[in-house]
């Protein structure tokens, strides 16, 4: 991509789309809702909108982990496991130790996974994908061992998590009370803070960032710890929403969280994208899932579709930006 080269009209359109992914995304969302309305005209209501937002919130929060890590060219595939562990530990420890201690311990578990991820990726330079898959595997093993010791204690889900997860105010889910400040914070952090800009810098050109004085390993270490904390918070919210503590609670959200970030215009190679698009991406996926359920597509078909979406969108971005 040189400056003197004049891009073709299609290329110029592509650049506009890549730089402002929000417009076409909102268009796609509206189109999907329109198709849904044609398929089942009775479905559209305020209740449905609230429900869709409620389901999309945990997904959007997990996708925040993917967005932030992808900005540096990484990925965090342990988020589903971390969310599950936090939820399970919080729910099973609450009857034993009381709610505050249980939540602190649960979040500590999340931070531990994040620290291990950060150590492997930032210090040992393992590829993030392999490292986070590995910690997810180990953490699942630990969860299975832990489960053995608390099998008899029963489960207590804290009231305020239930309120947050299932309650509604003015027709909209209470989860928004957590999500709106969270989203504002993330968007502000990625745009206005030094940390956020360093994420973009590392993702665009790690060597250049290092030469400009960014301590890459410290940023990555912080990033993966932060990602696990977000995943832990999501787990707590999800616990209130699902109201059961299972050993595979948030695992089905792993793949959609990657898909949401990718659809939202965050480049999996780093340096491009933002959280605003990801939120729309999460909404699109939720509507899409409703549609697939309505059309009675089996679970296998859904996975194939999500995998193909990730592939197609990434390939499209590569084409549009000539980035390799």
């Amino acid at each position, binding site marked *: 991509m040189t400056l003197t080269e004049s891009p073709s009209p299609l290329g110029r359109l592509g650049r506009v789309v890549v730089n402002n992914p929000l417009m076409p995304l909102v268009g796609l969302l509206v189109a999907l809702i329109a198709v849904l309305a044609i398929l089942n005209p009775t479905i559209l209501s305020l209740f449905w909108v609230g429900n869709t937002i409620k389901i999309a919130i945990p997904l959007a929060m997990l996708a925040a982990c993917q967005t932030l890590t992808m900005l540096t060219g990484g990925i965090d595939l342990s988020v589903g496991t971390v969310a599950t562990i936090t939820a399970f530990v919080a729910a099973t420890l609450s009857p034993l130790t009381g709610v505050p201690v249980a939540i602190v311990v649960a979040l500590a578990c999340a931070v531990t996974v994040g620290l291990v991820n950060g150590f492997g990726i930032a210090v040992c330079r393992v*590829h993030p994908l392999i490292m986070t898959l590995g910690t997810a*595997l180990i953490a699942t093993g630990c969860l299975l061992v832990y489960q*053995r010791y608390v099998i008899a204690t029963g489960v207590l889900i804290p009231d305020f998590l239930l309120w947050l997860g299932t309650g509604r105010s003015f027709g909209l889910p209470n989860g928004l009370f957590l999500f709106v400040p969270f989203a504002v914070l993330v968007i502000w952090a990625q745009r206005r803070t030094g940390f956020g800009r360093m994420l973009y810098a590392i993702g665009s050109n790690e060597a250049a960032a290092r030469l400009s004085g960014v301590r890459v390993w410290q940023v990555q270490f912080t990033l993966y710890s932060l990602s696990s904390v977000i995943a832990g918070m999501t787990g707590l919210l999800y616990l209130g929403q699902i109201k059961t503590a299972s050993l595979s609670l948030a695992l089905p959200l792993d793949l959609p969280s*990657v898909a949401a970030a990718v659809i939202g215009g965050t480049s999996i190679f780093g340096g491009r994208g933002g959280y605003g698009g990801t939120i729309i991406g999460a909404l699109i996926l939720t509507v899409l899932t409703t549609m697939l359920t309505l059309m009675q597509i089996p679970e*296998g078909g859904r996975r*194939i579709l*999500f*995998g193909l979406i990730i592939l197609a969108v*990434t*390939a499209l971005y590569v084409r549009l930006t000539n980035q390799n």
Partner: protein
Amino acid sequence: MRRVLTNNSWTIGLAGLLAFLLIATKVIQPDFGVSGLDSLARAALPFALASVGMAVVVIAGGIDLSMAAMMAVASVTGAVLMNGASDGEAALAVLFVLMVGIGMGAINGTLIVLTRVPDIVVTLAMLFVWQGVALLILNAPGGSAAPWLRGLIVGGVTLPFLPAALTEWIPKALVFLIVVVGAIWLPLRRSKLGLRFYAIGSDPLAAYRSGVPVGPTRIAAYAVAGLFAALGGLSVTMGTGIGEPIPGPYLMASVAAVVLGGVVLGGGRGGLLGPILAVLVLRTVRMDLTLLSIDPNVAAIIEGTIMAVVVMFGAVLATRGRKT
């Protein structure tokens, strides 16, 4: 002679480690004998085939995260086709599954070459696609395996001309592994194609300038990996007698075995004997943990930690290698 020794010092070290572990097993469990060896070889078979496939791709400078998912597709395809089939039909089914494996690998490779998206992203997306395909073929474990196929890997070797006592201790599964890998890899290694795998793995640009068709070679490497994944999936069905639509823990294990086996992540160096020995080492460790009557979940954690440490160590070595 000395050159052979120094070139293969890593492999020889691994063989020594394996021998030491087997002796340790004998010390832990004095009863350990022919049947123990047989079950060890049978448990290691799918892991070994997955690692061999992964090693081929890594040698050619790529990585295939969809290995375990392709194995699941092969496993369920084989189990469904062989359900209630005669011996002849079962043989046709095996051939068909192998073709499917090659096809799946070729699709992975073609997508990587055509879309120019990095291999790690494409195969991650395809991981979900193949998982979905496996679920569509068979929603829950089921199907069956032809009895003669099961007979190929159960029990010890008996040769018509030699007394049974002489060969009985050699597990059939081990012989099956050596024959299959040897039949596919040895001719390949000697051929032009095998040389090209190493060429594009060590330096794609140099390979391109020397007239190696980089794209087709890469597709071929993934197709070979797909073939081994199909064999691995069949061996799962052969071992359990049913098809498993949910992929086993073969992905992490194969990456760890490849690294431990002396194949450098990044490509161009290493062979297939190292990864096979590494798989046997990892399986023996697992068996020893079981024999020491350690909780299987704790054993899984220990095993996962070993694998993660191995991968971290490998990554550090790879970074060092790039710097010098």
